[in-house]
């Protein structure tokens, strides 16, 4: 799965905001508000088609002292929110 084309992410203070532009703006109104972790996962999903497991593996490599079970549940919840919001194509 990956983020659908047409989304733009901007850093605003400590947060990251994303909107749909171009053709995508016709089907997705509103905006997404992410913290640092969310933006990290968002960028991974923008890089290409990934499974949840691949995202978790990458996070485990990039961060130290993180609990895999916690990362798995964070990723799972995050991905579910994006799918429900019509932002991710599976």
């Amino acid at each position: 799965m990956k983020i659908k084309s047409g989304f733009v992410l901007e850093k605003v203070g400590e947060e990251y905001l994303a909107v749909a532009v171009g053709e995508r703006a016709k089907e997705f109104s509103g905006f997404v508000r992410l913290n640092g972790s969310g933006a990290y996962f968002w960028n991974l999903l923008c890089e290409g088609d990934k499974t949840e497991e691949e995202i978790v593996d990458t996070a485990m490599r990039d961060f130290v002292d993180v609990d895999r079970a916690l990362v798995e549940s964070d990723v799972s919840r995050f991905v579910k929110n994006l799918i429900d919001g019509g932002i991710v194509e599976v």
Partner: protein
Amino acid sequence: MTELYELRAVENEIRERGSFASVTKGASMRPLFRMHRDMIVVSKIERPLKKYDIILYSGGEGEYILHRIVGIRDGYFIVRGDNNYFKEKVTHDRIIGVLTAYNRKGKSGSPDTFAFKLYSRLWRYIYPLRYAFVKTKFILSRIKRKLF
């Protein structure tokens, strides 16, 4: 009702979270922004507003508008879209936020850069020329319609 909800949601986001983002809508801020192409970030106002600031304000019919301050008066602002040829009076109570960042044609931007400030001033400076050009075009098109 949908539009009223939208305005409340925008105001709540800015009041409670400090910021709001949207894809650009309408044509009133061309050539700076083009409908559906760009992204605007509007934040809570934390310093006195100045001439050339781009503000988000309530349009009075459940909608919100993003236009530029072109004059400051006692108790209200004079605003105009970069692509508009009419002014509007906006009192402080209608203002929801100020543009603090944007993404234009895929590139991040800020209204605090020298280039942006230069564009804002130049664009305002040539307003009389732009107005004359648009008015002439309008008159010519009316003449053309009457003749043919």
